[in-house]
């Protein structure tokens, strides 16, 4: 089955440039994919009439019917496991996991089946499915609603893992993930859902599995993704007022990691800070630190520093401001890096 190409015109977007929230951009992106390909189906808990707890699938069931937008039984293993079967059967399921902390009942299906079927069958079975996961903290929620589990999936061979940080990426990346022939874990920064930005629905998007330099600078490279992108950009703006020039790279793809632009940047700046909400031990941030010291050893002026969530369970929400990397912690790391 040929994947639809990405330069298709989309009827969901009357104007070329629109100002949208990430939530609405995802909704429009899903709609565009569903219009372009009748095999795309959306499935998850409450995705139908309610439009999902974050309303990302709002209105889709009304327009595409109950067989393309499935309100599923309350079972994550069921959602992901049946999506495997549907994908084998030629569908392109887009699964919604309601909150990050609820992906684990489906973890077995993801690591045992989703990740390995292509390999086990030596390519005879493809699994073009997407698992959407609202992730990260900062919304004042109770436990299990604010986790950053992306490293578990990046650690598993056979999965692709991406995360968007702005409406334009949200709009395009979700469509590209659906078009991808491999299973994609799609992490959505939930505390940024209602932040707005411009989406050009006609300009051809960049490739899905590439990181992007958002801001060039000369003193320190900052690598980040998802909800921490905005924090890092704000830190860069604040640092500029103190006469410090930060380069900010939005990873966008966590597996495969696209580190070539990071290496190139670190060779110029000599310094790297990784910013992420996820705990640091045995994580994506560890991986970046390891690879950068391996590739850029002679260019480094300071050790790679990490500004991350702590290696604890996500704390009660009254403490999440302390837990989440904020502008001050990023700037503190900049000070430490430059003091070397």
């Amino acid at each position, binding site marked *: 089955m040929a994947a639809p190409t990405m330069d298709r015109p989309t009827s969901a977007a009357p104007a070329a440039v629109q100002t949208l929230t990430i939530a609405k951009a995802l909704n429009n992106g899903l709609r565009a994919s569903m219009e372009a390909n009748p095999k795309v189906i959306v499935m998850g*808990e*409450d995705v*139908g*009439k*309610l*439009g999902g*707890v974050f309303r990302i699938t709002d209105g889709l069931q009304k327009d595409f019917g109950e067989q393309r937008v499935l*309100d*599923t*039984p*309350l*079972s994550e*293993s*069921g959602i992901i496991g049946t999506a495997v079967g549907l994908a084998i059967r030629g569908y392109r399921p887009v699964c919604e996991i309601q909150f990050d*902390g*609820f992906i*684990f*009942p489906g973890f077995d299906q993801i690591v045992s089946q989703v990740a390995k079927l292509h390999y086990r069958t030596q390519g005879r079975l493809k699994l073009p499915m997407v698992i959407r996961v609202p992730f990260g903290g900062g919304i*004042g*929620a*109770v*436990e*299990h*609603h604010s986790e950053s589990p992306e490293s578990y999936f990046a650690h598993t061979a056979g999965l692709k893992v991406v995360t968007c940080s702005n409406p334009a990426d949200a709009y395009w990346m979700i469509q590209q993930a659906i078009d991808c022939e491999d299973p994609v874990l799609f992490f959505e920064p939930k505390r940024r859902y209602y932040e707005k930005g411009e989406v050009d629905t006609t300009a051809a998007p960049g490739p899905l599995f590439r990181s992007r330099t958002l801001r060039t600078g000369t003193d320190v490279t900052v690598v980040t993704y998802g909800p921490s992108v905005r924090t890092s950009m704000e830190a860069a703006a604040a640092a500029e007022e103190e006469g410090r020039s930060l380069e900010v790279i939005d990873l966008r793809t966590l597996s495969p990691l696209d580190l070539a632009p990071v290496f190139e940047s670190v060779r110029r700046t000599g310094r790297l800070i990784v910013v992420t909400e996820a705990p640091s*031990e045995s994580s994506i941030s560890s991986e970046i630190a390891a690879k950068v010291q391996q590739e850029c050893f002679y260019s480094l002026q300071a050790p790679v520093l990490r500004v991350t969530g*702590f*290696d*604890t*369970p996500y*704390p*009660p*929400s*009254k*403490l*999440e401001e*302390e*837990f989440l990397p904020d502008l*001050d*912690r990023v700037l*503190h790391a900049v000070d430490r890096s430059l003091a070397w």
Partner: protein
Amino acid sequence: MSSPEKWTHPGPDAAPATAAKPTAEQVIAGLRATDEGGADLVQLLTPEGERVQHPDFDIDITAEELRGLYRDMVLVRRVDREANALQRKGQLGIWVPLLGQEAAQIGAGRAMRPEDMAFPSYREHGIAWTRGVKPTDLLGIFRGTDNGTWDPVATRFHPYTIVIGNQVLNATGYAMGQKFDGKVGDADGEATVCFFGDGATSQGDVHEGFVWAAVYDAPLVFFCQNNQWAISEPTERQSRLPLYQRARGYGFPGIRVDGNDVLATLAVTRWALEECRQGNGPILIEAFTYRMDAHTTSDDPSRYRLSDELELWKLKDPIERVKVHLVKQQWADQAFFESIEAEAEQIAIELRDYCVNLPDPPPGRIFSEVYAEGNPVLEAQRDEFLAYHAGFAGGEH
């Protein structure tokens, strides 16, 4: 032995509440949810406050006992309404309303003995009350200052479980432990009650809990509060059969009780616990009830259910029917009802005061008690964080 099973789908007779495939209109209108619960429903007190007999589950109840159950229900409803209001005023991050499920919870909770164990999900404020958990101890998790502050060992009330279905396996293991410890088989035996919703029955953990409890004869009462909705999804989205009928497939009894009838819930749960104590467990109880408020304070039920449905269930209010019965029997007078109201008001005031004065936890709480035996790497991370933090505070002086 070889009773001829009919290999057909259960017809409307067998499954009045969730028979066959509901029409779209029925589901949209939530009509299935307004069903009476079917012929197998155990009921002892009608919505009109009439006492009715049941061949298997009848109980004797004194005036004093019934007044006690009434008091419990009124107080937990008041706690629930106050907490809901506190969320609306921004004092709680979220609240999970109990409204409508008071009878199911007070009946089940009062059937338990102190030495029994309860595993709740997250809506069991009424069970908490019967276990002696102070209502104020429910606030930490919803205000975001803690993850629930009651002592699960002293109260025998497990922490709230947010991940749907997880507690069912935990409860099964606990009940297996009760059995392995020889606490089953005589009059002072122990048992466990595990609480979960209709939506939860779709989770693998719940199915696995049924399997394990059955094969190990665990003294466990599975108490499913079928409040008709799993957020926006009606019970029909989880099951084709009435939920209590599933138990048979696992080899233990399933009973559907009127979850808005505190007497019936009490009677059936008492019986089930007794069976468990004698070594005849497990048992599934489906309390047929209704969630009268939103799923949580973040939910918008107007998107998926009609107000007609709510109006219908209001007629089956669990508290009103007891009140009517108390009055008809002349078991309570106006002074009694007023005293309960006053007590409820007092509890609400205490809850409010406690909530608004609940201090934010100190930053070090992030790192406290992650491990029982410590972890040097984490301790170093904590020390670095606290030093960073102190530097900030100092810098502001």
